[in-house]
């Protein structure tokens, strides 16, 4: 029996998410251009809202299902098997955790119901080198927001922006005057926005919270996002190895399946070792987060650091093993590879997490 990946968190939720992801992948393949794909992603988003995914870990009194983080990890993992291009980690974990600064905030329930679709912007968001980063400035007692954020992952047609800047948590309707957005698809087909803020006045009720708690929550939210990204990418890697093995077992050159060549068998064995060690680390990080260990951040940082390296090397090996096919947009394996490459940049790349770890070791 050829290799089949063992899910980090198995179960019905995982199976359901794998199925939805596979259907979405097939549906996207039929869309002719980016605009049609974006419209289709909006339908996919409505479908997962209907299934209650964004409500998974919300408390019941906030309109949620009161599930565990592990339930969410099962969904993220299943979605990862076909690189479902939806912002699951952001919408289901990062946004609720930030909003948790204001217990009972009505937007929680609206998020769960899909009426609110929120784009979260964490500290240190990317900006173009020639563009001003986000900045708050006081002017006659009115706070104003200016600057640019490049390529922020977002749900379809975002209704709000939830921004952590300095020690403030800001909530702004996306239609606020002075805010503009250019929508793009990332290399993993998810939606992202280039947001520009042109001296946008911030009314006092737009500042949801302020102080150390905001900073702490932002860090925790980033780690929740990072660990879910790792879970999802690990399952993507597992699926990618399965697909690579299937290709090498059926593609015949020189009168024999490619998989009979030791060079390629070893390359797949290397992919597998990378994947297994990643899976080990990610499993540990997931457990640490679920148990709310004091040092959970460290496990998350190591897992994400490892994802940077392992994800890219698995993606590159898979492309190489597929030959010219690996260079085509139409191949599911290529799409998984692009997701793995992209996943590194979500919630801090390998250098970001290396810096955190080194800083902690110095102290």
């Amino acid at each position, binding site marked *: 029996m050829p290799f089949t990946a063992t899910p980090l968190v198995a179960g019905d939720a995982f199976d359901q998410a794998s199925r939805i992801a596979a259907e979405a992948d097939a549906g996207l393949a039929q869309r002719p251009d980016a*605009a049609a794909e974006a419209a289709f992603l909006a339908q996919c988003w409505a479908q997962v809202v209907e299934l209650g995914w964004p409500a998974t870990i919300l408390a019941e009194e906030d309109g949620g299902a009161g599930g565990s983080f592990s339930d969410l990890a099962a969904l993220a993992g299943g979605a990862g098997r076909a690189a479902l291009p939806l912002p699951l980690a952001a919408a289901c974990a990062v946004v609720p955790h930030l909003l948790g600064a204001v217990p009972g905030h009505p937007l929680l329930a609206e998020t769960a119901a899909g009426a609110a679709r929120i784009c979260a912007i964490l500290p240190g968001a990317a900006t173009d080198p020639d563009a001003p980063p986000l900045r708050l400035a006081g002017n006659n007692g009115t706070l104003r927001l200016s600057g640019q954020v490049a390529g922020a992952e977002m749900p379809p047609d975002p209704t709000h922006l939830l921004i952590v800047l300095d020690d403030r948590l800001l909530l702004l309707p996306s239609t606020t005057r002075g805010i503009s957005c250019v929508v793009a698809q990332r290399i993993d087909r998810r939606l992202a926005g280039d947001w520009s803020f042109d001296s946008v006045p911030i009314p006092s009720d737009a500042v949801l919270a302020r102080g150390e708690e905001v900073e702490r929550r932002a860090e925790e939210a980033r780690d929740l996002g990072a660990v879910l990204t790792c879970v999802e990418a690990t399952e993507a890697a597992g699926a990618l190895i399965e697909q690579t093995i299937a290709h090498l077992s059926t593609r015949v050159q020189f009168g024999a399946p490619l998989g009979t060549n030791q060079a390629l068998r070893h390359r797949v064995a290397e992919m597998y070792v990378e994947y297994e060690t990643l899976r080990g680390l990610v499993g540990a990080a997931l457990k640490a987060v679920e148990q709310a260990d004091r040092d959970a951040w460290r496990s998350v940082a190591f897992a994400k650091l490892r994802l940077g390296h392992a994800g890219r090397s698995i993606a*590159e090996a898979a492309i190489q093993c597929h030959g010219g096919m690996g260079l085509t947009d139409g191949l599911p394996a290529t799409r998984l590879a692009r997701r793995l490459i992209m996943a590194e940049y979500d919630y801090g790349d390998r250098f970001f997490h290396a810096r955190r770890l080194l800083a902690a070791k110095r102290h």
Partner: protein
Amino acid sequence: MAEAIDYDAFRREVTEFALTRCPPEFRRLVAESRKLSRKVWAPWQRILFEHGWGAPGWPKEYGGTGWDHRQRHIFDEVMAECDCPPQYHHGLRHIGPVIIAFGSEEQKRRFLPGILDGSVWWCQGYSEPGAGSDLASLRTTARREGDEYVVEGQKTWTSHAHEADWMYTLVRTSKEAKKQQGISLLLIPLDTPGITIRPIATIDGWHHVNEVFLDNVRVPVANRVGEEGQGWTYGKFLLDRERLGGANVAPILKNLGRTRDLVAAELNGEADRLKREMLDQRLLAAEAELLGAQALGQEAIAAVMDGRPLGLLPSVLKLSTSHAMQRVSDVALDVVGERLAPRFRRVDAGGPNAEAPGIEWVQNYLYGRVRTIYGGSSEVQKNVIARQLFGF
């Protein structure tokens, strides 16, 4: 005795030409690592042609420069250093020399001028869905009917077929016991009835390659190069001529320099210090590999000029340069990935600024994966090396 060539003076002459005659807008495209197309390559070829430099590698009698290998190498190097577009290779470096070596006088008269002045565009139809690394297993057939061949089959990965006029292609003209036999080389105009060209979308979002379907395509026997059944030999001839291709490291070094500038420009804050240092180290390692390849390239040129065999040098060059090239593009991705990989393609398509500035770093990283796949994949090169090292 022939006059000794002053290579330094030659280098100066080529540099002067490159800097004054290559349109600045072309040089800008190259400097920004943009994708090129016939729209750029053809006029540039025309400029070179008018200067008498259309075909650095061809003999003088066919309109070539008659340069020796060192001069040709210097020419390539200077062109890369000055950000001139590379000459498009399918006519000039591939089918042109094959026609010169094996074509009829009529074919030389008919095909060489259009290649030389850049007015006729060629693509290569070798690979098929079932024949990649194992090219000799190709199955597209050409059945003889009077003074025509009737061609049936499918080619794939045909680069730039969508902007080409002609395709040179390997087809099976008879079924021999040994699969390298019974293959012939045909020249097919792409507007012949029965040809369908379909784009293949590639990982970088660009249109480079195509599927070419051949359904009852009638090709005059006069369009066969050389003898029937000898196509494989001509293909091998072509590969042998291309064996020095890896010696030109200049474009990669140039790209490395650009990537180093990118690191310096984008990672200039104190918070970026660790990342900057790590990336600079990776670039140095790639540079070391490339400088080694460059030295080997000089050795290869000297060997060719002295008539010595090249041995494993071409495989070594191909492996190390393709690897180094990928390492460099990997660094570039690490610099810009977070802000540019999310902006792969605009959802609202149009508009003058539809593409995020710098997105070619991401596209080139993705497309750069091809370096270890085409032109003899890394695995195939390693097999060649190992077979010779072990002697079995």
